[in-house]
């Protein structure tokens, strides 16, 4: 009697084990377990903080009281805030435009030279992208130095006036954009060079037979063929440039008189240095709209291509 009972329970235990093992061996279970670490890290360190930022933005400075949209009301009344909005847009849009333009042009120049030399040129021209931006920006900072600027030394030789690169608001705005273009253009160059290589040569030959000049070849052959890669790189770069921190932080720290602050540097100044975490979070949240728009475009593009395939 006793033996049979324990025997029966062993059967059910075995049955449960077998079911568990079958479950563990199922493809979907293994697949899910393999993705689990990725999900945990994204949920805990990306999604949760992003949502938490929304919550933080509704608290007062000491984070004890709920103030609803109080922080935003406060921001909207401040002139500095609108200046930061304007500067962020100017910074991101003009930097991305110049990066894409320079990348497109230089990609053509590299594409034009004999294949043997292309590797060397490409290798040389990508160097700004390889140096950590914090370090290369320091080199720019030193090039822009108020009393020892190496650019001004050249200007003095050829009879041009000295420029206060980082001291004058307009020149400072120009300088931060210049450095961002310098850092990011090589990335576009590499992308566009890869895209150029994938345009079939016959299309250009056909265009040449039809009597197209170089401008028409670019407009009617190159650009349509590269449309996808151009839109993706521009979107991505727009996101990254909007969220830029290193360059402005090191070159100007937002100065002179907050004139070059963009969202990230101003949020850092208010939130970390100024100890007003909710206000800093509110400022950084303004990067959200542009990201949402970018996400919509990218998703649409991917769905579009998914349907074509």
């Amino acid at each position, binding site marked *: 009697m006793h033996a049979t009972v324990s025997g029966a329970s062993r059967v059910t235990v075995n049955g449960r084990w077998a079911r568990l093992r079958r479950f563990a061996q199922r*493809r*979907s279970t*293994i*697949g*899910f377990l*393999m*993705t689990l*670490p*990725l*999900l945990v*890290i*994204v949920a805990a*360190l*990306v999604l949760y*903080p*992003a949502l*938490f*930022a929304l919550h*933080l933005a509704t608290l007062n400075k000491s984070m004890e009281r709920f103030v609803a949209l109080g922080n935003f009301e406060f921001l909207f009344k401040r002139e500095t805030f609108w200046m930061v909005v304007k500067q962020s847009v100017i910074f991101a849009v003009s930097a991305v435009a110049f990066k894409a333009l320079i990348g497109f*042009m*230089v990609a053509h*120049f590299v594409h*034009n*030279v004999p294949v043997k030399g292309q590797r060397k*040129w490409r290798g*040389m*021209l990508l*160097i*700004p992208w*390889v*140096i*950590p931006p*914090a*370090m*290369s920006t*320091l*080199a720019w900072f*030193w*090039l822009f130095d108020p009393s*020892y600027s190496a650019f001004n*030394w050249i200007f003095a030789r050829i009879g041009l006036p000295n420029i206060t690169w980082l001291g004058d608001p307009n020149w400072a705005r120009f300088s931060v954009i210049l450095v961002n273009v310098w850092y990011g253009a090589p990335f576009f160059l590499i*992308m566009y060079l890869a895209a150029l290589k994938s345009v079939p040569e016959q299309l250009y030959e056909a265009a040449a037979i039809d009597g197209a000049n170089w401008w028409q070849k670019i407009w009617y052959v190159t650009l349509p063929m590269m449309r996808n*890669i151009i839109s*993706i790189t521009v979107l991505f770069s727009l*996101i990254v440039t909007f969220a830029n*921190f*290193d360059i402005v932080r*090191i070159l100007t720290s937002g100065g002179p008189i907050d004139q070059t602050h963009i*969202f*990230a540097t101003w949020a*850092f100044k208010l*939130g970390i240095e100024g100890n007003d*975490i909710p206000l*800093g979070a509110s400022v*950084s*949240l303004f990067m*959200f709209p542009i*990201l949402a728009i970018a996400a919509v475009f*990218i998703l649409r593009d*991917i769905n579009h291509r998914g349907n074509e395939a």
Partner: protein
Amino acid sequence: MKGERRRALYWSYFFLVLFAIFFLTPPIYMMITSLKSSAEIGAITNPWFVYAPTLDNYTALLGSAQYLTFFKNSVIVSLVVVVITMLISIPAAFALARMKFWGSATLGMGVFLTYLIPETLLFIPLFKIFAWIQDLTGIEVMNHYWVLMFIYPTLTVPFCTWIMIGYFASIPKELDEAALIDGAGYIQMLTKIFIPVALPGIIAATIFAFTVSWADFLYPMAFTTSADQLVLPAGIVTILIRGDVYAWGQIMAACLLGALPPLLIYAFLMDYYIAGLTAGATKG
């Protein structure tokens, strides 16, 4: 026709030289300054020329415990992040590329989209979350370089997974079937077939993860402050630049030495480096 082509070639070279000057001026100027003594920098001479080259700045840095600490912290953080990134993203990419399970397509897309949430949006809530953890558990999270090992994977894992999904998806399905017929499980399939075949992609992703962790500046600026806990980018910017005493020769030497690991990787593994860069967009 031939003359026209030659003219286009000459113009291309002309502009390439022009842009090469633009792109290479800062690193070259970095090098020029790093070879000068403070006295030569202070004397108003030609800044573009070294009259009395010296390696003093380099020897001073290599003998400075502080700079070596920055370097050591950077090496430890970057290497650990590379390992963590690979351990997370290789299995995830394999599962998302090959094992169709409930929600796997949406997940793949979701991974891609996390790339859109920038670190500049996350550092303030993370700052607060770390302060909380400190209050709750008593573990001092802030101001330790190891905290970067936990945060950097958020910068590297999504993109590396995305690259690897592309590489894994390009492996022919017949290989899986052959492995399954031979009685291999999924883990064996991954380690015996997918990892060896997709090795170029894994190298590209490794390089990407290393360079991103090596270069990040915002997180160390926000979460570490003590001189012994800083990694290179934050260390050079906050410690070496003190007030108005600018030892620019030394700062430029520090930047150049700090940029050396990514530059060396780039010089020796350029094709993998570029493959990692372009894979994300062209496979998207």
